[in-house]
């Protein structure tokens, strides 16, 4: 009977205490290390007393639209990961700077990356995925990745845009991004002189 009392107590304590007491593995109990790897048991009962370790995460976009994703998928964003790990059980996680279509794209990216086989090269998939997006969506996705602190998505989107710029001359960059030149003629001349090294052999 005492053992059972201990078990009940352990459930209410943090996962670390569970490890120290060496109790038999209970499918309902999720250790912190498993949680972080995203291998949480699929059989967590609804009445689990560990609300901070859900299997699914609900994300809320700017328009209050909700997206349900697996924990492992959401962990690719530091903001989402921290919101869950903090144990405040903040659910849904509010992402009020990200609009629904952008969030959907981010989730699609994360899903593909988490589903990737070990050592699988996703460069081609990434290029195709981003190449399909309009310029505005691409840029908003980069901004969202920055806001949600998702390094993989931020790296990918910014590198993609940088690669586009690398191919271009000044006028082409302006055309492509719809930027108006706001230099005076004199300033422009000076600018090109200053940066002439970039064009010299």
């Amino acid at each position, binding site marked *: 009977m005492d053992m059972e009392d201990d078990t009940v107590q352990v459930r209410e304590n943090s996962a670390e205490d569970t490890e120290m007491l060496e109790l038999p593995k209970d499918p309902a109990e999720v250790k912190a290390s498993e949680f972080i790897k995203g291998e949480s048991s699929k059989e967590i009962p609804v009445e689990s007393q560990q609300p901070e370790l859900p299997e699914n995460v609900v994300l809320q976009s700017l328009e209050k639209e909700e997206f349900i994703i697996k924990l492992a998928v959401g962990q690719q964003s530091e903001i989402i990961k921290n919101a869950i790990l903090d144990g405040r059980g903040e659910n849904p996680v509010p992402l009020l700077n990200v609009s629904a279509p952008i969030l959907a794209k981010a989730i699609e990216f994360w899903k593909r990356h988490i589903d990737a086989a070990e050592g699988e090269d996703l460069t081609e998939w990434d290029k195709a995925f981003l190449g399909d997006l309009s310029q505005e969506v691409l840029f908003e996705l980069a901004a969202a990745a920055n806001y949600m602190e998702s390094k993989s998505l931020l790296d990918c989107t910014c590198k993609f845009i940088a690669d586009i710029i690398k191919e271009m001359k000044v006028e082409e*960059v302006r055309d492509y991004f719809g930027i108006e030149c706001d230099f005076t003629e004199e300033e422009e001349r000076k600018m090109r002189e200053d940066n002439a090294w970039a064009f010299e052999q």
Partner: protein
Amino acid sequence: MGTSFAAEEEHDKPHGYNISDNVDILAEIMSRLDGRSLGVAACVCRVWYAVCNRDSVWEALCDRHVSGGDAGPGTRSVVRALGGYRRLYRLCVGPVLDRLTGSTGPDRWTGARADSVEVRGNVSLSLSLSLFSIDCYERLSGGSLRPASLLFLSKPVDVS
């Protein structure tokens, strides 16, 4: 962000949206450019010019090409004291990389393209800082003369 999604569906060119609105993202993008592209990007408009001149952008570039040292706060303070990462790249790292890789770089004005656009290669940290110190010393002690010792990196010197 709140930018309307419907708007971009009507018009392929961004309408009511401007890439220059988010300078942090612009900086992230610039950090992934090579040296020459940064020179081109600086000529696009005022906002781009300002972002391209952020030392952090050049620091990211240098970090990619400088090896053999701890690119931590210690290095950063030395580089800043000597004149900043932009100057370091333009005077030392860039020209040395060109020499090492034999890259001639694309001629942006005529649009002619070199075979290798992406300059790959590393310059050692000690070499970079040594060269940079020469430049710094010249500037401090040279009076009205422009620092010229490092010109040998970009222009051939006749030593016959």
